[in-house]
C-alpha cells in the first residue's frame, strides 16, 4: 500500500516538474487543475456531471451484464442457441463502437435511451462471451445432484448456477466497467449536452486542459473506488469457500 501511494506521489511530482518546465497553457500544474476542480465543485456542476455520467455507466453496464449473462448461459448450455447466436456475436464484437453509437443516434435521435443502448450493445458481446465460457464449464454432476434432490428452480439458480458463474461474472464486471465508462464518455461527447464526456468536449473546443483534467481525474477516482470497494469485496465474498493456501 505504501509503495502504491509513493508511486502516485511520484507521478504527481513528475507532472509538477514537467508543467513548470513547459510553462505552457496546454500542460497546467496540478494545483491549477485542483483549483478548477474546486470551482466546478462549488458551482455543483462537477457533481451533477459526474453523477449523470455515473448513472449512464451503471444503467448501460447493468443492461449489458443482465442480457450478457442470459445470452451467455443460453449459448453455453444449448448448442442450437450457440450456433444461432455466434454469428451475431462475431458481428457485434467486430463492429466499431463508434459505428454503433452513430447508428443509435441516427435511428433513435440524440436521446439518453440511444446513448445507453449504444453503450450496452458495445459491452454486450463481451459479457456474453465471458459468461458463455462459464456456462460451458458448469459441473454436470452438481446439476444432476440438484435434479435428483428435486431442488426448486430458485435454489438451483442461487446456490448451484450463480456460484459457479461468479468468477466469470466478476471477470466480465472488471473488464466491463472499464470499457463501459470509456464508451460512455464518447457517447456523451457525440450526442449529449451533459456529463463528463460533454464537459471534456467543451474543454477540447476551448483548449482548456485544466477543465478537461478537472473532470477526467475525479471520474477515474470514482471508477477505482468502485473496483476497490465493490468489485474486489464481491470477488472476495464469492470465493470465501476456496481453501486458502497455508
Amino acid at each position, binding site marked *: 500500500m505504501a509503495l502504491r501511494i509513493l508511486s502516485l506521489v511520484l507521478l504527481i511530482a513528475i507532472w509538477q516538474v514537467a508543467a513548470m518546465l513547459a510553462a505552457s497553457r496546454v500542460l497546467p500544474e496540478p494545483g491549477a487543475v485542483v483549483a478548477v476542480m474546486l470551482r466546478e465543485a462549488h458551482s455543483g456542476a462537477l457533481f451533477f456531471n459526474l453523477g449523470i455520467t455515473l448513472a449512464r455507466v451503471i444503467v448501460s453496464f447493468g443492461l449489458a451484464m443482465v442480457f450478457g449473462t442470459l445470452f451467455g448461459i443460453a449459448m453455453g448450455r444449448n448448442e442450437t442457441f450457440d450456433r444461432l447466436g455466434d454469428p451475431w456475436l462475431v458481428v457485434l464484437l467486430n463492429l466499431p463502437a463508434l459505428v454503433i453509437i452513430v447508428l443509435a443516434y441516427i435511428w433513435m435521435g440524440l436521446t439518453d435511451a440511444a446513448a445507453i443502448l449504444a453503450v450496452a450493445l458495445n459491452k454486450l458481446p463481451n459479457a456474453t462471451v465471458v459468461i458463455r465460457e462459464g456456462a460451458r464449464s458448469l459441473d454436470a*454432476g452438481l446439476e*444432476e445432484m440438484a435434479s435428483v*434432490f428435486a431442488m426448486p428452480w430458485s*435454489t438451483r439458480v442461487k*446456490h*448451484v448456477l450463480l456460484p459457479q458463474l461468479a468468477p466469470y461474472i466478476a471477470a466480465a464486471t472488471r473488464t466491463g466497467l472499464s470499457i463501459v465508462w470509456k464508451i460512455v464518455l464518447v457517447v456523451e461527447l457525440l450526442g449529449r449536452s451533459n456529463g463528463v464526456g460533454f464537459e471534456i468536449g467543451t474543454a477540447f473546443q476551448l483548449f482548456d486542459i485544466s477543465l478537461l483534467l478537472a473532470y477526467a481525474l475525479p471520474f477515474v477516482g470514482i471508477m477505482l473506488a468502485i473496483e476497490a470497494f465493490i468489485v474486489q469485496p464481491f470477488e472476495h465474498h*464469492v470465493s470465501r*469457500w*476456496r*481453501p486458502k493456501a497455508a
Partner: protein
Amino acid sequence: MSLAGGQRQLDIKITRKAFRTASGELREVLRDFSLVLDAGKIHALVGPSGYGKTTLLRIIIGLDRDFEGQVSLPPDTKIGMVFQEPRLLPWRNVRDNLRLVAPEAAEADLSRIAADLGIGEHLNYFPGELSLGLARRVALARAFAVEPNLLVLDEPFVSLDRPLAMRLGDELVTLVERKKLTTLLVTHDLDEAIRLADHIMLLGGRPAKIIADFNISCPRATMTAEHAAELKAEIGAIMAGASA
C-alpha cells in the same frame, strides 16, 4: 415415512438401453432387464466396472430417460442419493448443503442426522476443508436429510481405506434399519455387499442382466466370518462361470 416399511415394491423393467459409440455403432448396455426392490430391504447390485451399473442407477433415479421400458416408483417417492463422488456444493458449508436439499426439515432433525454420521462438529466447514471420508459422510447425511423412502448409493465408499469404509458401512446399516428404508447399493466390492445387504444381485454379461440372485438369510448381526467366506466363494464361482 411409514409407507416405506409397507408392502410397496419398486419395479424396474428395461426393455432396451443402448448407447451410440463414438464410432457410430449402437451398443446395447441393457436388454430385457428387470429388477424388483422389496420395501425396507437393502439390495446390493454387484458387478465389475463397465457393466451398466451406473447406467442402471441413472435410469432408476430419473437422470436418464432415454431408454425403452418402465421404472415404476410410487408417485410420492423421495430419493436420497449418494453419488460416487460426494457432489457437495463447495461454496456452501456443510449445514447449508444439508439444508438446501431439505428446506423444510427441522433444525433438530438435521443436527441429529449430522451427529449420527459423525459430522456434528463440522457443520460450519466448507466441503473443501473436509477429508474425503468426511465429505462422504456429509453426502450420506444429505441423502438422509430429505427423509427419503428410497435410498440409492453408487459406490459410496470407494477410495476410502478399508477400516473407514467398514465403519461407515456399519453406520449406514444402523440408520437404514432404524428407518426401514428401501435401499439400493451399487458396488463392485463383494465383501461389502455380503456385509451390508439383505439381498445380492450379480450383474454380468453383455448386454447386462442379473446372472444370480441371493437372499442373505442370516441377519447381518449374526454374520460370521466363515459364513461370509462361504458365500463369497459361492458367488465368486458363479461370477467366474459367467465371465468364462
